[in-house]
């Protein structure tokens, strides 16, 4: 049965290697997400300041990160920075750095949007009840912002997990790269391996992201 590509998955440690590849993907994206969320919340609050200087600074940062394709950012961090400053960043560290910068910008914009979407009247009626600015923020604004943010944040998390597949281009052996290696190594014995290997990778990505988005849906329903 030379042509049954599915067998490739059970050869040697192939399946385990795919899982290890997935772990690399998940490690990079989860570290970046965990760093991006608090930094993004701070950045989002920073963006709502009325000061023209902080506004310009945050605008420039956000637009720069948004306009640059993530791949270019990865190349700048991994190849460019080493050349320019002589810092020897490992591939994985550059990846975490880039995805954190990107995640912070995106998260910040979500936080800013959620904060300014709270109607001005919520501030007024809290003030009319004698609340201080801090009490208004803690009891009224933050809980409402959180409810708006959670689905958006989870959406961003799954986007970040998917986008980490780019790190293969700075030489990190993650799940896609492992898959490619397996396919290449078995090209002659199992010509149809590609379908099965990529199929498994699809399933793995799905399994990684689906629980996260269904969690988002649940929270959204509960906090409608």
């Amino acid at each position, binding site marked *: 049965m030379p042509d049954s590509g599915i067998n490739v998955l059970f050869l040697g440690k192939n399946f385990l290697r795919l899982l290890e590849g997935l772990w690399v993907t998940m490690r990079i994206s989860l570290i970046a997400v965990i760093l991006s969320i608090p930094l993004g919340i701070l950045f989002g609050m920073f963006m709502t300041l009325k000061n023209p200087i902080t506004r310009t600074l945050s605008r420039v940062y956000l637009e720069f990160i948004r306009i640059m394709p993530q791949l270019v950012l990865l190349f700048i961090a991994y190849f460019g920075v080493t050349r320019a400053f002589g810092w020897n960043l490992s591939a994985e560290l550059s990846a975490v750095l880039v995805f954190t910068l990107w995640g912070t910008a995106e998260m910040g914009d979500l936080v800013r949007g959620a904060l300014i979407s709270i109607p001005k*009247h919520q501030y007024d*009626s809290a003030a*009319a009840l*004698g609340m201080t600015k801090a009490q208004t923020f803690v009891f009224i604004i933050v809980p409402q912002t959180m409810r708006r943010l959670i689905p958006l944040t989870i959406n961003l998390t799954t986007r970040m997990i998917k986008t980490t597949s780019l790190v293969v281009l700075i030489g990190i052996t993650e799940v896609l790269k492992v898959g490619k290696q397996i396919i290449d190594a078995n090209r002659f014995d199992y010509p149809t391996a590609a379908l099965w290997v990529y199929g498994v990778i699809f399933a793995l990505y799905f399994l990684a992201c689906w629980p996260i988005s269904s969690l988002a849906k649940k929270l959204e329903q509960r906090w409608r």
Partner: protein
Amino acid sequence: MEESIQLQVSGLKKKFGAETVLNGIDLDVHKGEVVVVLGPSGCGKSTLLRCMNGLEAPTEGIICLDGAAITSGGKNITKQRQKIGMVFQSYDLFPHKNILDNITLAPVKVQKRAKGEVEQQAEKLLKRVGLWEKRKAYPRELSGGQKQRVAIVRALCMNPEVMLFDEVTAALDPEMVREVLDVMLELAGQGMTMVIVTHEMQFARAIADRILFLDGGGIVEEAPPEQFFTNPKTQRAKDFLQTFTYEKRNKIPSEIESFERRN
């Protein structure tokens, strides 16, 4: 009589940029008095109320509650606002809290009162407006009239000395206006000091001890309700009241004819 003045506005001016919204308002509100502020839209009625509890800082002039000046940036402002309840046109309940929590939040967190005692008071007030069964509901599950009654209860639960109502029925369906106005009439009957901005003329006439007619940022006329509605002194007030009455116009025969021809 002097010590019974609860809220005193003197020489109040308010500008937004170059635009003058209030141009020198003087007003004394006595304890237990109900003052209704009338006037065309944009005449500064809402701004006057917002200045009264420091949501807007006066450009000039001074507002005193029980003889102490209200300064919107000052340290005492949160203390003073606890004595001034305010209800807004758009209800502004907190959407993430149920009705009971909406009401008890500020008394517990701001006034540091015991939760049990506040809940007892909330129960009494909610029963009075007929909404005790809704205590676990969220604002989005209530009708506009119900939300507005909850907003009134929320303000009352702070035990305010003065209540400000800013066009509280303007966003409501006609059949829900009544239930809100009834609550306010009852409140007035109990001797609450109230300043009310409204477009409900019949209601104003029934509830007011005094009508204040504002136009162009100034007080144009000040009178007891009967006198204001039956015999206004100023032409401006007459014109204003005229806009609330309608006369049936007879259809002109030639127009009917041309209308029929066209169709």
